[in-house]
């Protein structure tokens, strides 16, 4: 029998090793990081479908912005030459289409005098003498389409825009642009910014930072595990459970050819937080058993460990998996993947805990628990005393809980949503500094495209429609975060003025629609028709109004949209519908979807957890009591976010999943022990003390390990990971405290498991 078990254990361990090696090999071959943030978007969502169509109609693309600053003004030979050279170099890059590069060098200058109309470039050969430089300066100042758009109004900065397709950006490409641009530095300063860079860098930095931080997290966890488990073997196998389950999960992902998304890089983090618990609880039980039965054999010890602990461990795993699987309700594919694979990882961690840990004990022997100096008997232990104190402090705990929950609910009312990608970078990081710099000098780096779609052709040629569009632009531009805007109306105004010898009183939309049509024809014949294609479609049914915003935050976007929506009725009368497009808008919709999904799945998993607990413990009241720690944790998490002004974003929203996944584990272990001791002792006080001594301790260890591990992330260089670290740590702390205080108190007060028994 013993031999058989030993053989079987070896088999289990070897099988695990083989699968792990296979996983690593598969990962090496197929693992791919998805850095294109567009791939996160639910392509079938109507808002995305429309935006993608509009992007095609109007050639809407995000632009890399290269800014060149010369404090003594850009109108000198050297700076103008640099603008020309950088423009040409960008145009020659394989990833960029020639016509997608815009700068003072490529721009058309349409000027007119009484009898003539002149279409020319601002410069071709770089002007050298004072007079031509002065002329060029005047021409720029007189051209509203250029001044303040390609050259800043204080004339110290000029920008070069390179519009690129979404899927083109890579870190290598960015570096190439950066090193190319930096060659032109001095005395001019060169800045490189733009949404493609923000997105690209983000998608690249987040996993990179994770890669750097995870080993440190693991290291810290090892230390703390050693301290609490006081055994190398226990620490080693607890850790192995987590690491192997992570490897298998990513191996499966690779085998299914599913790329690694920024969200899924959080899976190791989740598995560390959740997976160590199984090992801790098992070894904790083993340790206590050995202490009580010092002469027990390996087989007896393992048998006791499994028979006493398989149920709560299984229950915690199931509830955690349910929490993750509920993420399938999300409309965002990477989040669905995250949910499914995190659930898979938890399942593996469970299997390994119940398989590998016993097998390892058979094969490598019992973990040698180091005796702590002055270890006392249970009766005198810290846990017993703590239990008595907690019971005594009942009223205070209740009041504190109510207060904390109250304040948190107030905090929740202040929670705001951020779709900002920029906010994920350090305030004084290059990316944000550059962004601020460009926002100071130009309209803004974030684009909101408003698509006006009429029913009939030529709708947007109508003078009254163009005037409404301009009026709308003016209203929106009043918002502090909106820098500039651009539409077909601006073209017509400019043409009207130019055709009337630059007289200011003609800087308006003419009343005659035929004249508008003729201006457009003239522009097509003399200017770059590509510019028109960006503001109006071929049939003049649809228009694209572009707003430049100085912030990529949902707040700024929503404010602008609120003003735009005021023009809905007026435009409706002309048969025009308002739609939105562009990456900024998509990010906004995406964030809303993500959060909607998160909140839905949170509520759903809460309900399911209550049902599961009710089934497991065969008492509805227990279902409700068990849900207390997670409910409190969730409320406190969101409350703290509101109070500390941490916005809900794609990363922070996922943290609520951990709240459920972990918080519920604490509750299950505690309640299960409480139930067992209640049945064994029939004494409420003793049950409480013993539960605290057994489960309370394991929960405490578990919380300690994970909090210590996640506090490491607070030192990450990547702000979202810092937030993640701080919030998960807080989550664990609240779950832990909630379980051993308020949940325990309610369990205690309610006399559950003691009702038919006289104490």
């Amino acid at each position, binding site marked *: 029998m013993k031999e058989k078990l030993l053989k079987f254990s070896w088999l289990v361990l070897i099988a695990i090793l083989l699968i792990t090696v296979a996983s690593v090999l598969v990962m090496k071959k197929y693992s791919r990081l998805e850095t294109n943030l567009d791939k996160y978007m639910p392509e079938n969502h109507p808002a995305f479908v429309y935006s993608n169509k509009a992007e095609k109609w109007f050639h809407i693309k995000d632009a890399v912005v290269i800014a060149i600053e010369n404090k003594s003004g850009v109108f000198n030979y050297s700076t103008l030459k640099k603008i020309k050279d950088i423009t040409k170099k960008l145009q020659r890059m394989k990833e960029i289409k020639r016509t997608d590069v815009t700068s003072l060098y490529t721009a058309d200058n349409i000027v007119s005098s009484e009898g003539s109309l002149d*279409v*020319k470039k601002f410069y071709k050969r770089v002007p050298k003498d004072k007079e031509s430089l002065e002329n060029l300066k005047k021409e720029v100042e007189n051209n509203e389409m250029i001044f303040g758009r390609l050259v800043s109004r204080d004339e110290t900065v000029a920008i070069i825009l390179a519009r690129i397709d979404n899927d083109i950006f890579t870190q290598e490409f960015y570096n190439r642009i950066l090193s190319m641009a930096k060659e032109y530095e001095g005395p001019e300063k060169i800045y490189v910014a733009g949404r493609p860079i923000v997105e690209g860098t983000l998608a690249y930095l987040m996993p990179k930072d994770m890669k750097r931080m995870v080993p440190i997290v693991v290291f810290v966890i090892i230390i703390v595990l050693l301290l609490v488990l006081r055994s190398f073997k226990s620490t080693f196998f607890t850790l192995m459970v987590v690491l192997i389950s992570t490897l298998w999960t990513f191996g499966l992902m690779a085998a299914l050819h599913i790329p690694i998304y920024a969200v899924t890089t959080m899976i190791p983090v989740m598995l560390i937080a959740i997976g160590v618990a199984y090992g801790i609880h098992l070894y904790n039980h083993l340790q206590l058993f050995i202490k009580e039965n010092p002469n027990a054999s390996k087989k007896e010890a393992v048998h006791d460990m499994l028979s006493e602990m398989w149920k709560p461990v299984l229950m915690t795993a199931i509830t955690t998996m349910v929490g993750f699987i509920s993420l399938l309700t999300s409309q965002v594919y990477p989040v669905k993947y995250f949910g499914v694979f995190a659930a898979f990882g938890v399942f593996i961690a469970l299997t390994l805990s119940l398989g590998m840990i016993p097998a390892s004990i058979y094969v490598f022997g019992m973990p040698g628990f180091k005796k702590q100096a002055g270890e006392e008997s249970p009766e005198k232990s810290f846990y017993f005393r703590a239990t008595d104190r907690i019971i005594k402090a009942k009223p205070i705990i209740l009041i504190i809980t109510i207060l904390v929950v109250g304040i948190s609910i107030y905090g929740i009312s202040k929670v705001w949503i951020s779709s900002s990608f920029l906010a994920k970078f350090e305030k004084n990081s290059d990316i944000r500094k550059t962004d601020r710099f460009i926002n100071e000098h130009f309209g803004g780096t974030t684009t909101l495209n408003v698509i006006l779609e009429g029913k009939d052709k030529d709708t947007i040629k109508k003078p009254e429609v163009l005037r409404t569009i301009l009026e709308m632009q003016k209203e929106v531009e009043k918002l502090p975060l909106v820098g500039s805007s651009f539409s077909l109306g601006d073209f017509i105004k400019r043409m009207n003025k130019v055709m009337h010898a630059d007289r200011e009183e003609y800087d308006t939309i003419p009343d005659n629609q035929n004249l508008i*049509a003729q201006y457009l024809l003239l522009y097509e*014949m003399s200017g770059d028709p590509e510019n028109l294609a960006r503001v109006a479609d071929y049939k003049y049914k649809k228009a694209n109004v572009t707003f430049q915003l100085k912030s990529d935050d949902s707040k700024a976007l929503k404010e602008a949209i609120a003003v735009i929506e005021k023009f809905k009725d007026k435009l409706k009368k002309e048969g025009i519908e308002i739609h939105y497009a562009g990456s900024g808008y998509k990010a906004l919709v995406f964030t809303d979807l993500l959060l909607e999904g998160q909140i839905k799945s949170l509520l759903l998993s809460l309900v399911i957890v209550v049902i599961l607990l009710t089934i497991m413990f065969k008492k509805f009241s227990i279902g409700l009591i068990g849900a207390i720690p997670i409910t409190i944790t969730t409320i406190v998490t969101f409350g703290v976010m509101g109070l500390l002004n941490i916005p809900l974003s794609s990363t922070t929203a996922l943290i609520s999943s951990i709240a459920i996944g972990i918080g519920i584990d604490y509750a299950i272990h505690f309640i299960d022990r409480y139930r067992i001791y209640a049945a064994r002792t029939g004494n409420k006080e003793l049950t409480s003390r013993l539960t605290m001594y057994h489960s309370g301790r394991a929960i405490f260890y578990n919380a300690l390990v994970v909090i210590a591990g996640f506090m490491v992330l607070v030192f990450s260089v990547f702000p979202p990971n810092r937030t993640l670290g701080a919030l998960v740590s807080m989550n664990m702390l609240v779950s832990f405290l909630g379980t051993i205080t308020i949940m325990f108190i309610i369990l205690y007060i309610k006399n559950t498991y003691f009702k038919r028994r006289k104490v």
Partner: protein
Amino acid sequence: MRKAIALTLMVIFIGAGSLLMGGEKLTGLDIMKKVYYRPSPKDMTAELVMTLINSNGDKRVRKIRQYIKDYGKVEKKIMFFIAPADVRNTSFMNWSYDDPNKDDDQWIYLPALKKIKRISSEDKSDYFMGSDFTYDDLGNRLPEEDNHKIIREEKLNGEDCYVIENTPKDPDYMYSKTITWVVKGKWIGIKRKFYDEDGEFLKELTAEKYENIKGYWILARVKMHNVQKDHTTVMELKNIKVDTGIPDRMFTERMMKRGVR
């Protein structure tokens, strides 16, 4: 008339031209000169239907009445828009000079503004009326401005063609090279491929219809497809009349204002 390829007339005296060829070995330049300098009618009247098709498949169709007359050192052209209705009677006049150093004179008349404006455009690489043709593509480029090399001879649409590679002498020119298919004997280019400054394939011109009117070979329908922008222009000439003796007063500002009759 010197315009080589597109909407303008492409003409040849078939008899004389083809008989002379005999055993003579032609160079690339010889062939391009034959195309460029071949005799042409003194004037032409036609209706031009210009269709622009963008990458979404949307179309803009314009109908234009045009008159062209060759004065030897200068070629004058006047165009009146007939459709769409909102630009009807907009007119455009162009005087193009033999002297390569002299820029074209251009005027535009907007009826809604009742004003004539001279347009000065210094740029030969400008696109013609929002189309995929630049002014140069329409035949303003002298053969001497490029180096020519016959790369092969082949049949295209049943015609014996010379395939000629044209490389500009000016390295900063908008095309790094073009490849032209010239029909032997007819001396018309029926296909041309354009490569941009970086050597990438940019656009392709095809003559979809060419007919012989009064002994002149005329490209009646040409298509230019810009593959990089996925934008296409089709220009079709209808009701072509040649050598009708268009009076000189046709090419005046007064006529521009008068509009289509």
